[in-house]
């Protein structure tokens, strides 16, 4: 079985990478993952302020700033892409089947 874990919070704390790295609980969790040998891919996302939401309706690409506001949409999958810039990510997102009735939220990975 493969699982995608969606790590969620309300962004009020948003520790820096360094703070996260120094946190004992986080260190223990990472060590545990390594010991189990289970991690295929992991990425920390930039806060929602850096998010862009893409929808395709009748062949038109609709781009909105921020995360999709109507939270009736649930995450149904995760794809990680490595591309040139946001415009290319929008182009890729707009081509996904689900963009035609749902939405694809683009969140830059915190590198």
């Amino acid at each position: 079985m493969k699982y995608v874990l969606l790590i969620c919070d309300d962004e009020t704390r948003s520790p820096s990478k360094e703070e996260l790295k120094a946190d004992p609980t986080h260190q223990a969790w990472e060590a545990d993952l390594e010991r189990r040998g289970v991690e295929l891919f992991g990425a920390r996302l930039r806060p929602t302020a850096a998010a862009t939401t893409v929808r395709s309706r009748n062949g038109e690409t609709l781009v909105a700033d921020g995360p999709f506001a109507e939270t009736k949409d649930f995450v149904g999958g995760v794809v990680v892409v490595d591309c040139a810039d946001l415009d290319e990510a929008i182009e890729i997102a707009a081509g996904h089947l689900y963009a035609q009735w749902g939405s694809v939220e683009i969140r830059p990975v915190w590198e």
Partner: protein
Amino acid sequence: MTAPEHAVRAAVDAAYRDEWGQVVATLIGLTRDWDLAEDCAQDAFAAALATWPRDGIPSRPGAWLTTAARNRATDRLRRDTAGNAKLRQLAILARDQGEPPVGEIPDDRLRLIFTCCHPALPFEARVALTLRTLAGLSTAEIAKAFLTAETTMAQRLVRAKRKIAEAGIPYRVPPAELLPERLASVLAVLYLIFNEGYSDQDSRRALTAEAIHLARVLARLMPHEPEPLGLLALMLLNEARRASRTDDGVLVTLEQQDRSRWDRALIAEGVAVLDQALAMRRGGPYQVQAAIAACHAAAPDTASTDWPQIAALYAELARMAPSPVVDLNRAVAVAMSEGVPAGLALVDELARSGRLDGYYLLPATQADLLRRDGRTAEAQAAYEEALRLAPSEAERRYLTGRLNDL
């Protein structure tokens, strides 16, 4: 070759208006660092004020300022270890340090304006960023223009710049397939800036001048696109009527405006710019709106206005950019060309649809048409409803006047 103080001051002011956006755009292009670009542009203008009285005003102030800003950026990056990679990029251009570049400086302002107006940025951030980086308004000036606290506006600019960097918004003019959508965003930003200034009589007036200036730059940089010209024409034609729009703080409708106060030179320029756009034979909402404004501008009074033509243009606009406000304007034009009952029928239909609930111009338009039709009691009720919804003092005074005249 010294220059007198006042001549330098005038030259720097002119350069600030004409070259600020270009200097910032070039520096962002080189360093991709928006804050650094703004700081170095600021330093370059300060250096101009300090050295031009001694050395004389350079023959090409823009090139001088760009070179000065670039040298400043090089200095700052040299002191910063993380700046080394950027420095290598800058080094290519720094070879001719101290002298203006040989050829023309490539105009980066188009890249800057499309990046500022990227749809992944919140709309109000696009407006603020455009005014800051292209027009060179200070954060305090932008905050004042939009009746926002300066700290809020500063936050908005910081967040927008951070998003550009973190989300990877490219610094470029979008490719052809994205151009129509992205250009629409740029035009909407410029038109909003204009309207913010236009709705206000004194304090924010400078915004209309900034918007017209930016529209001129955009039209010049995109000579094969008709809509930037259409927007410029629309702004010029509206600006021409500004002086007659209010009288002592009371709104004056088009019908009652003193047309001798309209600025004929602006109207002539607006019409010429519109003709240039229309000659490209690719219509668009700004060209249609400018054509409507031109119909009004050409008429000596309301009675001799070409209302059938205006009604047809509003119908075209409604097809291109559907909006209940456009439908309301069309209803007025229909009332003027086909008679009040035909117009009122359209307004009533709009009212029933509920699409303009709470918008004061709906009952105000109804009231005006009812008054023309001699239905005084109904007109009075509609004016009272409009008065209740009117957003500002100028409109309330106008409506009160109308109510008293019944």
